[in-house]
């Protein structure tokens, strides 16, 4: 039963990852792609949670923590780049 739950969670996360990469490929603008990257970071945190439970290796939770902060830094960096020096979409 528990193994089925882990497999189902993995499958659902994989479907979400495919959909996220689909939006990353489609765009159509750079902020949309940044949103897709943000979701992919959240999905990776979910994958790490499933992996920690299925393997019992608890130190990997630290990886999830670092990943959350890194994704935040990346989003803020992209936002600043867009605001200060990016191209305008409707020029």
């Amino acid at each position, binding site marked *: 039963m528990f193994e089925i739950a882990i497999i189902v969670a993995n499958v*659902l996360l994989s479907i979400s990852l495919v959909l996220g990469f689909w939006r990353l490929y489609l765009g159509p*603008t750079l902020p949309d792609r940044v*949103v897709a990257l943000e979701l992919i970071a959240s999905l990776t945190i979910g994958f790490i*949670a499933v992996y920690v439970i299925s393997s019992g290796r608890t130190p990997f*939770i630290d990886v999830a923590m670092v990943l959350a902060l890194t994704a935040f830094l990346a989003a803020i960096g992209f936002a600043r780049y867009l605001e200060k020096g990016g191209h305008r*979409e409707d020029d």
Partner: protein
Amino acid sequence: MIELITGFFLVSGAAFMVVAALGLVRMPDLPMRLHATTKAGVLGAGLMMVGVAIYFGEGGVTARAVAVIGFLLLTAPVAAHAIGRAGYFVGVPLWERTRSDELKGRYDEKTHTLASPPEMNESSPDDEPRR
């Protein structure tokens, strides 16, 4: 019993992730995509970390899982705000059926500061009846 609760949290968190990804693909413009991914994505990841905390039931693991959830709850709204603001300033087109754009004409494109348009400064907001 613990396995049952953990499985419930894992599967429900993953289901919320699917909802977030579906919203990312299906929603028509940037603010709606942000709305879908930020809230559902953080809820999904948070539920899965709750599952981790319940499954191990140790102090150290629970503390780190709570730290992850806290970081997510702190950073996701700030990041979504920054991206949405940058997207609006960059000129990402809104959905064609958007009813109202309250910010239109009210921000300075050079300094990126918000202000009321000149004709609104003369009459105070109390004079106009709200529609």
